């Protein structure tokens, strides 16, 4: 007590100040710090929840992205298969068409050759017939002019001997 008095401390005043401080501290704790702490705790929880949700969303997004990539890859493979099949079909069709065209061309050429051969044969036969007609007619005229009874007799004799 004496020491307090030596340093000029009034213990009554000091008690009053402690009491006042306690009141202020209580009021601050009750109406400011505690709600603030609760609010902060709530915010923390919300942030944590938000982070968790964000992480989940990121995972979902990554999963979706992976699924999309897989789906795209499958689609690409399918598309490639379809394209390859279409190419094969087109190639086969082209080949078949080419073969058909070749056959048609060959048929046309063969037909043309046949026609040409037939026409040639016909022309040759016609020429032969005309030549034969001319030759025979010429011979007939010559023989008709030169023929007389003696020649005819010789001819008949020779023919009868041949029979």
């Amino acid at each position, binding site marked *: 007590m004496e020491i307090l008095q030596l340093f000029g401390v009034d213990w009554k005043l000091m008690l009053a100040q402690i009491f006042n401080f306690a009141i202020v501290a209580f009021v601050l704790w009750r109406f400011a710090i505690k709600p603030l702490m609760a609010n902060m705790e709530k915010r923390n929880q919300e942030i944590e929840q938000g982070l968790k949700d964000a992480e989940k969303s990121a995972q979902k997004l990554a999963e979706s992205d992976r699924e999309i990539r897989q789906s795209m890859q499958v689609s690409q493979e399918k598309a490639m298969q379809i394209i390859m099949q279409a190419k094969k079909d087109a190639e086969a069709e082209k080949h078949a068409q080419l073969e058909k065209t070749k056959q048609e061309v060959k048929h046309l050429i063969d037909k043309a050759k046949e026609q040409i051969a037939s026409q040639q044969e016909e022309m040759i036969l016609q020429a032969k017939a005309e030549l034969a007609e001319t030759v025979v007619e010429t011979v007939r005229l010559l023989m008709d002019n030169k023929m007389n009874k003696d020649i*005819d007799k010789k001819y008949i004799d020779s023919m009868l001997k041949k029979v």
Partner: protein
Amino acid sequence: MNNRQQAKNIAKLYWTLSQNRDEKEVEQIAATMLDFLASRGQIALVSIVLDETKKLLYAQKNQVAVEVLSKYALTTSEQAAVKSLVHKKTGREAILHHNESSDLIGGVKIRYEDKIIDLTIKKQLEDLKQYLSS
């Protein structure tokens, strides 16, 4: 049955019926045949019947009727050659019936029974033409 076959049958019948008959009976058979043909509207067959009857007559005598066609009349040696040829072919004596044709250039065409030996120049030329055309 065609006209030729029918005429042949009638000729055979006429010929068979006329065997060992006298002239009067043969004439009566001929008249009956003519009436038969006329009644059937086949009087045109008479000439064929006569031809066939001639053939039967010739056959009985071991002869064969030969039609010979040529541009000029055949000489005796030609006729003999034709007769010899036909005899060689048929074994029968050839009775020649000659006809001349100005359509022929030369040669001879011999016809007996159903056979034809065409030795005409016309035929030779036709063969030549056929040969050259083929």
